[in-house]
């Protein structure tokens, strides 16, 4: 495998390298292979972690730790069993769970808490459907009112463009269950945003 092959496709939309070839390179300790993985997957992992922990430094640390654990355990990865990307996100999920456990930090807040903390920003805009204006902070805060799994499904499906069956495999749930999580998650988020607008 020529090193140049790893570098021709940094664009995540054109992965270009099969999981098999990538894993072989990582097992050999090829520097370009590990660089390729970081450039391809670190930004998405960072978004996924950041939206759940809301701490940029911690998110960076966790992404680095995901990469190190990936290198350390690459011999155990079986290509046919799961996509490489799903494996990385599974490691990230485990590390996020560790954070919840160790620091007792779960960013989920109740809708009531959130509404109390975030007074209406734009008085007069009560018709959510036609005129409401949402900014990033409102959406991020709204995401925190969801359950962890609802948030994960929405982040992976809407933000990261994962297909729902792939999300189901990552979460270890049935497709029907993940569809339910997605539907209820968006509905809960809608309710949270409408309630905030109407206060």
């Amino acid at each position, binding site marked *: 495998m020529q090193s140049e092959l790893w570098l021709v496709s940094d664009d995540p939309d054109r992965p270009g390298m099969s999981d098999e070839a990538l894993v072989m390179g990582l097992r050999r300790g090829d520097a370009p292979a590990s660089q390729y993985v970081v450039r391809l997957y670190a930004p998405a992992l960072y978004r996924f972690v950041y939206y759940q922990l809301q701490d*940029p430094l911690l998110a*960076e640390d966790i992404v680095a730790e995901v990469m190190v654990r990936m290198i350390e355990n690459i011999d155990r990865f079986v290509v046919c069993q799961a996509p490489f990307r799903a494996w990385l996100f599974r490691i990230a999920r485990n590390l996020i769970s560790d954070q919840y456990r160790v620091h007792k930090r779960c960013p989920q807040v109740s809708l009531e808490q959130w509404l109390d903390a975030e007074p209406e920003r734009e008085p007069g805009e009560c018709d959510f459907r036609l005129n409401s204006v949402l900014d990033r902070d409102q959406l991020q805060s709204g995401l925190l009112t969801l359950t962890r799994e609802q948030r994960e499904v929405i982040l992976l499906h809407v933000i990261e463009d994962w297909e729902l069956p792939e999300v189901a495999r990552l979460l270890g749930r049935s497709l029907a269950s993940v569809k339910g999580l997605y539907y209820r998650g968006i509905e809960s988020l809608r309710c949270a945003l409408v309630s905030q607008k109407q206060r």
Partner: protein
Amino acid sequence: MSSADRQAQDDFIAASQQVIAGSSVESVLAQQQERQDELAEMICVVEALKEMPSPRLAPEALARIEKRTQLAAQSRLPGSAHAARSRRLTLLRPGSDTGSGGTNEGHATLTPIYLKTIFRTKAMAVVAVAALMVFAIATLTMGGLAFQHGTPGGAQQLESYSGIITKIDAGKWLLDDDTEMVIDNLTEIHGQPEVGAKMTCIAEPLEGNERYRALEVWILSTPNAPTVFPPQSHTSF
């Protein structure tokens, strides 16, 4: 869930997937005449999420992650302690590297075929294999001890650490009042260290609680430096 609810859920998911794929909310809702009112707000939420500016890794943060990953990858290169351990484990695995081609069965698969050419009796082969296993276990144990104590030949166990510098002494910094970071002439420092500054580093743990030797340090002047958000924009719907 009733069949009507399931239908509503499926219609929403189909509509939202079109929005995620890039279709406009209006065109998607036009295809859902019966449920237009019901779906409109939820679809708008999906569109707002899709267009929400996402947090981005700053180039220097990406470089730090790359560096740490490269250090981990180096331990896999031939000649490193990890590679040596892997080779030894491969040799210990029953049936591996025997070249038997699957013709041997039962006990024969546990006895590498080349040993049969050297040792004429089964007893001699068993004694030789046992001796090899004792030697291999002893070597692995010593290797493990060397790895734990960081002696030459052992792979470095590296960690990343982020915190606030609370004290600077010659040769060591105190971080977050409880972590000692040894700084020596091999430590690569990016930025100007000062008390109160936020920093992140790649370091190896030393003996004792909360003690590390820094290999590379980045001083972050502002608490949120690694995260770069695009300019705040509003999403209308």
